[in-house]
């Protein structure tokens, strides 16, 4: 059936792993916004959540780097990182192999994807789930977009993935939510960590909320790297979400730069047009 929920959020590991170093008021604003999104997700009653993330060399490497990868398993585990480092205990996360296979089969009609029958979630998936499904009781369909090892997935292909996921969700009886994670401008794990290009972020979020496809695709990797850092490559996941919610407009619940978390912390969602 039609997607019941489309949202986006930050996934920076500092959000949980360096929480004690943040200004408490800023951290609490972010955590409250995550709680608000969690409430909305629960109210939307998903049978499963597609999480579109940008992995960070946890499961996929340049020995065989997929442009797109979709999980197809009944269970996953995470975090793959040191739980003390991330601040999230290691846990099993349920999947739905049968649902994954049905979604993948439909997506493949227009977008060539890899699939993975095992996947150890890194912070890109675990940080959002920690806030949005804290009991880890909703089956997850993980989706990765290559935002890390050039040549990267082209932006227009990320949009097509979003359109394909929407079509795939339409074709199954389950209530499917879609959460895209990452971004926005950041220079992760480098000396520039903590630098945030707020103007760039706000401009990107404006394009996202208008679901303005030409504007969303109007970036080159070189410009993104210069203006928004390697972290800016992760706009691909947000673009996929926009593609999945084509025709709908977005609203930003929170945009708050928190340098010790390395990102302008973002919680936003699409107000899905009735279909």
């Amino acid at each position, binding site marked *: 059936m039609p997607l019941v929920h489309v949202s986006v959020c930050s996934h920076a590991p500092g959000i949980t792993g*360096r929480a004690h170093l943040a200004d408490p008021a800023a951290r609490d604003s972010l955590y409250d916004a995550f709680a608000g999104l969690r409430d909305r997700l629960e109210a939307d009653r998903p049978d499963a959540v597609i999480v579109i993330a940008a992995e*960070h*060399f*946890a*499961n996929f*490497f*340049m*020995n065989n780097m997929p442009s797109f990868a979709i999980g197809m398993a009944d269970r996953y585990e995470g975090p*793959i*990182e*040191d739980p003390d*480092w991330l601040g999230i205990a290691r846990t099993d996360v349920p999947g739905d192999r049968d649902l994954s296979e049905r979604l993948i089969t439909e997506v493949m009609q227009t977008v060539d994807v890899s699939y993975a029958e095992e996947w*150890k979630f890194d912070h890109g998936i675990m940080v959002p789930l920690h806030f949005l499904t804290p009991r880890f009781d909703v089956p997850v369909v993980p989706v990765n977009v290559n935002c*890390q090892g*050039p040549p990267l997935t082209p932006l227009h292909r990320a949009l097509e993935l979003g359109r394909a996921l929407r079509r795939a969700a339409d074709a199954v009886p389950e209530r499917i939510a879609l959460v895209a994670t990452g971004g926005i401008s950041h220079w*992760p*794990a*480098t*000396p*520039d*960590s*903590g*630098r*945030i*290009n707020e103007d760039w972020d706000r401009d990107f979020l404006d394009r996202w909320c208008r679901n303005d496809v030409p504007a969303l695709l109007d970036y080159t*990797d*070189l410009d993104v*790297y*210069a*203006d928004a850092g*390697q972290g800016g490559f992760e706009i691909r996941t947000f673009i996929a979400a926009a593609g999945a919610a084509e025709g709908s407009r977005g609203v930003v619940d929170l945009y708050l*730069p928190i*340098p*010790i978390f390395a990102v302008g912390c973002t919680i936003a969602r699409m107000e899905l047009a009735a279909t």
Partner: protein
Amino acid sequence: MSLYQVQKFLYELNRSPELQERYRADRAAPLAGFDLTEEEVLALVTPDIGKLFHLGVNGQILMHFAAFHQIEWTDYLQLMRDGIAEHGPVREGVYAIAGYEGVDDHSAGLGQRSETGIGRSDGGA
């Protein structure tokens, strides 16, 4: 020898408790299966975070190696700055896309001050 081989070792180390144990027991031994230069081997066994950053190791891979060696986050950031100061700009990889000029020049390019103050030449005052 190649950045690919260095990163591949670190990628595998990051995700394998068994390889981590072998590395703890004898840092050089697990490197035998990789095609590495002496410079790369030295950087991986010391460990020399600054040198590895200069060589082009992606921070998403390097940060877990630093954490594995009990290096605190702010120390990790400083070690990378020190590596650029000592060895020069990042040699290859994603950070060499536009030429990594170092934090101060990058700051000037963006027209922004670093929010954290860490690594500023005035010591963050």
